[in-house]
């Protein structure tokens, strides 16, 4: 199995002793697309000024940061985007830009080429124009995005197409997307997880490519194949379920530092100053999330499909009201992945066994390859964690309330003030 740069960064994040090795900064709280699967709620947080963003870059670099990724909303809507990227690069950081490339004309492409970016990731949902445009809600977006990609790649910038498997991918295949990427001089990343909205809304999940079609689409993509073997071993159970609070650390557009793009718990607001290292080391939430392993995820730790599963704590909270347990979307996808590689995966008809939810795991793989749902055992230790961190359970808090202390920055920046000079 090949190791991706993201996996190397996660390993480094955990063993380097550096508080934050990678930081993801959302610089824009607005977008020029209306993608149906987008997890974000925009226009409520406000945006940091250029000065505030550069101060965060300084603090990130000082404590040993290596990679800064910049996203939005749509980052190219900020007039000072190039200043941000150039500053990060001059500070000795490897930089990644996430964009839909809709606004990348020759002038912006020239400016971005001068920023010595490590990579630009561009969302492209299909090789079929109309399918892409339908998902983005913007007529002509496919053409402009592809034109933007050509401008970037033509200037020697490394571009990666990012294709989440949404309804826009119905009727296309991995091979076709790979051929398109290759013709544009790009690499391709396809992923099959769509997350719930950051407000806990489940509408984005409705845009997900149905599991049976995901398996068909992914037939040619080794990165999406589940491991052929199933079952549990202690090495897997001792691993972290995801990159939360380590290489996924995120600064939202208003300066709120959160464990990742999706988990709405504010660690601190970085516009308030303070060294990043001190903030992270003092945070009980960060310590807890970094120490999480599969052993903390009830149900999943007993599930034979664990190695085929791509569950996300944030979507678990939104869909099942429990951040550290199974949820239907993930179970359905894991069963589909398992079925596509083994031909098995049928879940037998309900039996008399109590305490079993047939819509979701954990599952046991029987000797004939069939799957049997088994009880989801919740222990006293699991409940003790919930008492310590009540936000692990319950209704997803609405933005601006409860656990989610997201707010506008001190200056109450409107969208336009982010364009002012420092």
């Amino acid at each position, binding site marked *: 199995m090949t190791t991706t740069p993201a996996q*190397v960064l996660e390993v480094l994040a955990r063993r*380097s002793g550096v508080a934050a090795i990678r930081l993801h900064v959302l610089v824009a709280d607005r977008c020029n697309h209306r993608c149906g699967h987008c997890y974000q709620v925009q226009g409520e947080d406000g945006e940091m000024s250029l000065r505030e963003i550069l101060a965060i870059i300084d603090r990130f670099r000082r404590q040993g940061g290596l990679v800064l990724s910049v996203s939005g909303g749509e980052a190219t809507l900020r007039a000072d985007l190039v200043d941000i990227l150039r500053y990060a690069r001059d500070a000795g950081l490897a930089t990644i830009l996430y964009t839909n490339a809709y606004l990348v004309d020759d002038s912006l492409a020239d400016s971005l080429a001068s920023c010595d970016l*490590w990579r630009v990731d561009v969302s492209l949902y299909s090789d079929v124009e109309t399918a892409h445009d339908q998902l983005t809600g913007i007529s002509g977006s496919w053409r402009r995005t592809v034109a933007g990609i050509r401008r970037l790649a033509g200037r020697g910038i490394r571009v990666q197409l990012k294709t989440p498997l949404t309804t826009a991918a119905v009727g296309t295949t991995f091979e076709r997307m790979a051929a398109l990427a290759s013709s544009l001089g790009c690499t391709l990343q396809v992923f099959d997880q769509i997350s719930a909205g950051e407000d806990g809304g489940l509408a984005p999940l409705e845009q997900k490519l149905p599991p049976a079609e995901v398996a068909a689409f992914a037939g040619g993509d080794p990165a999406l194949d589940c491991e052929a073997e199933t079952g549990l071993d202690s090495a897997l159970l001792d691993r972290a379920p995801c990159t939360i609070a380590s290489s996924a650390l995120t600064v939202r557009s208003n300066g709120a530092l959160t464990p990742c793009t999706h988990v709405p718990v504010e660690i601190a607001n970085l516009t308030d100053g303070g060294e990043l290292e001190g903030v992270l080391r003092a945070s009980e939430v960060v310590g807890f999330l970094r120490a999480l392993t599969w052993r903390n995820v009830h149900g999943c730790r007993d599930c034979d499909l664990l190695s085929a599963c791509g569950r996300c704590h944030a979507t678990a909270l939104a869909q099942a009201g429990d951040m550290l347990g199974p949820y239907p979307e993930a179970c359905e996808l894991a069963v589909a992945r398992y079925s596509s590689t083994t031909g098995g995966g049928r879940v037998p008809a309900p039996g008399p066994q109590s305490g079993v939810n047939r819509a979701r795991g954990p599952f046991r793989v029987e000797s004939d390859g069939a799957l049997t749902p088994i009880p989801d055992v919740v222990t006293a230790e699991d409940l003790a964690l919930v008492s310590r961190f009540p936000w692990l359970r319950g209704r997803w808090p609405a933005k601006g309330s409860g656990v989610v202390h997201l707010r506008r920055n001190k200056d109450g920046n409107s969208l336009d003030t982010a364009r002012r000079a420092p």
Partner: protein
Amino acid sequence: MTLTWNDDSPVQRHPRAVWRAFEGEVAIIAPWEGAVRTLNHVGARCWELADGRSFRAIVDVLLGEFDVSRSVLEGDLRAFLAELAARELLALGEDRP
């Protein structure tokens, strides 16, 4: 291209390579490739020393830090530098600042 290092050859990291030293290792990212490269303890030390000083100066520092003969060290260092050069991580020719 075959690269050779004599005693006076300057050895210089590529100026566009982003890197960070951690406890006992170095991570390197070059904008022109997708990979994150990591070097172990010995490689990390060589990389840190590759600041434009001469091949001989690097050998002299390493001899003081590692229990190894000069001839073995020089051979190992040449092989290591060839690997870095193959990955375009060293400043050669016009890349030299």
